[in-house]
């Protein structure tokens, strides 16, 4: 029986580790691209966005998993949508009350978590058919898999686009020394624009697939 299965059995650990690499929602399943473009011009919003998505995904997964045997099949998408929307509004309200600065920066993107394909995708593909604990792990894994890519993309975009790195609590760090600019180095303004997020994601996908040939579609 799965009741006697240890909480972090090999199978359960895979639920967390797979989405970070071979089942990554962004680079392998190509979900959640829209927000990966929108919030990655600076590092801080990308980090906060990742945390918010992990929060919403874990709770949505657990709630849907708890309700999975009661949900009528014909309205299951609507039920999922209501749960996700309610959680997103909660996150937004809590940020506005207790992290006002961050909520100003994320502005509309918090609301757009609702439209993040990863969340509906995991609810439909995993939470509807699995137990709450496994669903929570799946939520952490997929949220983190999404977050890692977001942070990598934001790191390169901010570094080359603005010459800075903005970390929560630390403010904006000017990592490119002034002397580089004196020698003629210039920030690449193109990195700030959405197309470069797509190209950066493309490069990550390329690097990942060239290192792991199993991922290459025939």
């Amino acid at each position, binding site marked *: 029986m799965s009741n006697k299965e240890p909480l972090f059995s090999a199978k359960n650990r895979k639920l967390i580790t797979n989405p970070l690499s071979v089942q990554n929602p962004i680079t392998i399943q190509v979900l959640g691209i829209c927000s990966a473009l929108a919030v990655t*011009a*600076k590092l801080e919003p990308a980090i906060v966005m990742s945390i918010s998505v992990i929060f919403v995904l874990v709770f949505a997964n657990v709630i849907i998993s708890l309700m999975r045997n*009661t*949900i*009528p*099949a*014909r*309205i299951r998408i*609507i*039920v999922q949508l*209501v*749960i996700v929307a*309610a959680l997103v*509004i*909660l996150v937004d*309200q*809590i940020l*506005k*009350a*207790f992290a*006002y600065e961050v909520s*100003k920066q994320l*502005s*509309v993107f918090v609301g757009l978590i609702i439209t993040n394909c990863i969340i509906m995708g995991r609810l439909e593909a995993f939470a509807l058919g699995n137990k709450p604990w496994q669903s929570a792990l799946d939520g952490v894994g997929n949220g983190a898999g999404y977050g890692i890519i977001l942070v990598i993309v934001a790191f390169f975009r901010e570094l080359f*686009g*603005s010459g800075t790195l903005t970390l929560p609590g630390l403010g904006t760090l000017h990592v490119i020394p002034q002397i580089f600019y004196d020698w003629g180095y210039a920030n690449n*303004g193109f990195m*700030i*624009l959405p197309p470069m997020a797509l190209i950066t994601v493309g490069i990550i996908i390329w690097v990942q697939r060239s290192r792991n040939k199993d991922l290459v579609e025939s």
Partner: protein
Amino acid sequence: MDKQGNLYTFLYASVMVIVVAAILAFVSVSLDDVQKKNVEVAKKIDLLKSVGINSDAKTAEKLYDERIGNNTKVINMNGEEVEGEAFKIDLTKENRKPAEDRKYPLYICTLDNGDEKLIIPLRGVGLWGPIWGYISLNEDKETIFGATFDHKGETPGLGAEISQDFFEEEFKGKTIFDESGSFTSIKVVKGGLAAGNDHAVDAVTGGTITSNGVQDMLWNGLSGYKEYLKN
């Protein structure tokens, strides 16, 4: 009960919606005060920043009471004082009214050395959404002492740069009336034309529409105070 039947489906949906609505309504109502407070504090931080006083969420209230407090005015476009509480005026709503019906809030801030600076709030539109700012003037009522701008969601690295220090610094010492005393506002111009011009600042690279938004906001916002400032 049949879990795929119509009755069950209807009941399920209804109960779920009511429960969710109740939870959200409860959260919204219970956090409302904290959120309103945050917005007020953010406004006070901006007001103080326009006269060069740096504050954060913890110190803003106290500093605001010390420096500005009740030293505010509401005027109309003829420069006459009218009834009203400056801090509570919603500029977005005022901007929709015809200019002669608008109320113009004005804050007077006392600095350490006893100088009194006038602070004028501004609100306009950028590329993606609202932009706003505060301009403080010296006692001569025409020279800019400081300025601060912010925005809802301008492009990071481009239009969003209007909230950076380098842009705000440019405004210091500029004047909004020319030698003959007519209102010029501050132009936001491209290509280094601002150098040596007392009524213009350099625009943000790659943020043309946001820069134009700042220029329009300054013109529209400040022109309501023309009469008051001339006296």
